[in-house]
């Protein structure tokens, strides 16, 4: 975990090197998600892709992983995001973030951060996060 955080601090990135369609299948079962674009290639015939589409929550999980690696597993206070593109099986995606403000809230210090998940140069998730900073930050 990082020991310092100030406005402008860049959060260490987190990378998923290849999005695994088997994980999408497990995720669909956990979510009880009947939407076939996540697990059935035949369902994609009317869509502009031949690769199954990663679940939005999994895309967001990569950002959560980055934040937890930075400030600890119980540090996330808010995730507010928009989904701006698909992530497909086999894609490499990278989560990044930058601290935009720091505030004292009750007995915690909160860092508000711009967050994003990108596939190459294209953002697929963008938004803000609030993270409780560890006492050493």
């Amino acid at each position, binding site marked *: 975990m990082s020991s310092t955080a100030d406005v402008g601090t860049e959060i260490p990135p987190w990378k*998923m090197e290849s999005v695994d369609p088997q994980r999408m299948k497990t995720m669909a079962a956990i979510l009880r998600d*009947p939407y076939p674009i996540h697990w059935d290639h035949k369902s994609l015939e*009317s869509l502009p892709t031949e690769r199954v589409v990663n679940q939005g929550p999994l895309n*967001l999980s990569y950002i959560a992983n980055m934040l937890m690696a930075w400030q600890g597993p119980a540090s996330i206070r*808010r*995730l507010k995001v928009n989904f701006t593109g698909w992530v497909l099986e086999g894609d490499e995606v990278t989560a990044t973030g930058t601290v935009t403000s720091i505030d004292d809230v009750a007995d915690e210090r909160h860092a508000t951060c711009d967050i994003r998940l990108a596939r190459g140069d294209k953002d697929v998730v963008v938004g803000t996060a609030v993270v409780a900073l560890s006492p050493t930050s």
Partner: protein
Amino acid sequence: MAEVDEATMVALIGHKFPGGTRRIEHWENWLLTDCAGIEQLPDGLVHPVSLFHVPIQGAGTSIADLFELGHVEGAGSVGLDGYDWEYFGPLQEEVDYAVEGSVLEVERMTAPSGKLYDRFVFSIEMRSPDGVLVARVTNHWRFRREQ
């Protein structure tokens, strides 16, 4: 794409989900965390991404029920616009959370492509067994009316 008139959709505003309780069991959290691509979290902490399906299921509904409520079916009929997930306390395995929620907003919109869709917003809260609010989700979905 299923056809439904705007008035039918707008009438969903205020619709309350049945509500209920939801326990996140260890096996479920283990698999969820594995899907997210990281090592298991310590101390029975639940992966934050659980706030997608746990509130929905705990509120006594399901993704399939929500699709039915929104009159959508088939590939390409549903889109995610955004989430606003608030964590007021740590989520733990093997705790019975009380869950309730409702539909906040429904609005028929026209995409830049000229195709119709319904913006569908719902919110669900989770409380600990002693009544403390631990999480709130507000999810923005898109139900497409034209392919």
